[in-house]
């Protein structure tokens, strides 16, 4: 089992996709979609982050399962922090 070497072509393709997604998200920001502006912008950001993590950071090719456990755990705790905080502040005005 030797190290997986990602081809230069794939790196350039991922980089180009990231630039295209950036242009897309900037373009969409100027169109009024109401609350969907936020949803679309954060979805595109998440797609970009996933591309970086999987390909640039080689997570798609790692054989070490513990690395994936660490990443999933970190993201899970982050979502817990955000979700519980917003559940608190979002419901304070309810009567």
């Amino acid at each position, binding site marked *: *089992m*030797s*190290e997986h*070497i*990602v*081809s*230069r072509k794939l*790196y*350039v393709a*991922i*980089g180009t996709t*990231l*630039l295209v997604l*950036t*242009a897309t*998200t*900037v373009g969409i*920001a*100027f*169109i*009024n*979609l*109401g*609350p969907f*502006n*936020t949803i679309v*912008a*954060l979805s*595109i*950001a998440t797609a*970009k*982050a996933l591309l*970086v*993590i999987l*390909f*640039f*950071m*080689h997570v798609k090719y*790692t*054989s*070490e399962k*513990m*690395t994936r456990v*660490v*990443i999933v*755990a*970190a*993201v899970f*705790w*982050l979502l817990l*922090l*955000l979700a519980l*905080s*917003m559940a608190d*502040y*979002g419901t304070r005005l309810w009567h």
Partner: protein
Amino acid sequence: MHDSSAAVETHSPALRHHFADMEQQRDAASLGMWLFLSTEIMFFGGLFCAYLIYRYLHFNDFAAASQTLDIRLGAINTGVLILSSLTVALAVHAAQKGQRKPLVGYLLATLVLGLVFLGIKGVEYADKFEHHHVPGPSFHFESVPVKGHAEMPPAESSHAELFFSLYFAMTGMHALHMIIGIGLFSVLTFFAWKGRYTPEYNTPIENAGLYWHFVDIIWIYLFPLLYLISRHH
């Protein structure tokens, strides 16, 4: 005698003795780096959480303050950072292939792109100072009706100041990470030039690359949150 010398030769000189093989050594180094990055996710997570809470509480003030940011400079900087992530990925590729000159070239390109990012950020910060948008005694924010929000009360200066406090905290911490990254990559460039990194041993390049990509991901979220999502509502 012949057998034992053959066994020694199959050993890469870069392999530390407490690892079974090179793959395990690489995986362990990468796992350690990811553990460090998970603490960084927690660190920036707190800032993101504070931003979301205050944006929720002072929605129109944050929208008005966000609309003063230069979306063009932010977009250019996003592109610059993505290009720098690409040059880092290509540097890792060159290190794995043992190509010394391309490795040094990609590392230098990364340094240049990192400095361009900080330069553009500096221009943006200078603009904030000029417009008194830096939190503190001289802070001043025109109480204007929020664009696209005629029905909402005009933005309050003290709440807009909160936006700029978070703006400086988040982009400032991000910029600090960039400066540390540039320091790391300067050292790597020097050793790469000396020919230290080989297809067997390139862990510092790989791990510094993970760090750089992580800092890129932070910006990938900062850009829409600070610049984009309040353009319309």
